[in-house]
């Protein structure tokens, strides 16, 4: 039981991993031009936030943060669906998955 209660590494290690994941996702969003890879990097950043929430939830013994992670997963699923369908529509119209294509919207 003593072994089961032990979480392995300390709090700072999990914070470090989740900050690193978030930064990698941000670098990916800034560098890649491929729309699908861009969406995947957004998923990576969402997962970094989930990891941080679960870490603090376990370290402080409060389950409510895990409910928030559950809702984040729900919203991420909806977001991925809409993003991919917009991508398919854009690909049909312009035969390209370059994100620069959206410059034509003149936003």
């Amino acid at each position, binding site marked *: 039981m003593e072994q*089961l209660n032990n979480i392995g590494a300390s709090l700072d290690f999990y*914070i*470090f991993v989740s*900050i690193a994941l978030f930064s990698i996702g941000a670098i990916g969003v800034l560098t890649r031009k491929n729309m699908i*890879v861009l969406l*995947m990097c957004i998923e990576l950043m969402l997962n970094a936030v989930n990891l941080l929430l679960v870490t603090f939830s376990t370290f402080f*013994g409060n389950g409510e943060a895990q409910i928030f992670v559950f809702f984040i997963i729900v919203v*991420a699923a909806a977001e991925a669906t809409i993003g991919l369908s917009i991508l398919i529509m854009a690909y049909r119209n312009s035969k390209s998955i370059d994100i620069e294509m959206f410059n034509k919207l003149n936003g």
Partner: protein
Amino acid sequence: MSLQMISVILGSLTIASALMVILSKHPIRSVIYLVITFFFISAMYILMNAQFLAIVNMIVYAGAIMVLFLFVLMLLNLNKEMEPETTRMSLFSAIIAGGTLFLVMITALRDTFQYGKGYSAVKVPEAGLVENLGNLLFSKYLVPFEISSILFIAAMVGAVLLAKREKQVID
């Protein structure tokens, strides 16, 4: 092999596979590395005794969402010369921006690192189990849970509407 060792190895593998997601040129390889990253994150959840979220993460993320990504990739049938090029300038500036973000967040949380050394045990080990989360989800968070079903219906209708649109040329 202690739990400390296992979690350090898991963390470094997670970061390595996340790096491979943005470094690999082919999008299908990126998807595969992302699935591997999600499995490592699920393993970390299990290590932190959040069993429900580990299973949900595996089923929803690594199962459903990533299969959706793979399906779209295979549907689009991309070839090598369609991969958009990134300029050296944007690569350089993005690495500087991301590295600065990393450094700023690490520095802001430096005090947490000092005081967090003592916290290495789970206070309430059953916080992440299905029983506790189910009680919370169906009592205090019942209304957001029901509203999320409306969100899903909206997303479903929107996806069908967007993907079935007839051809109209942007130019």
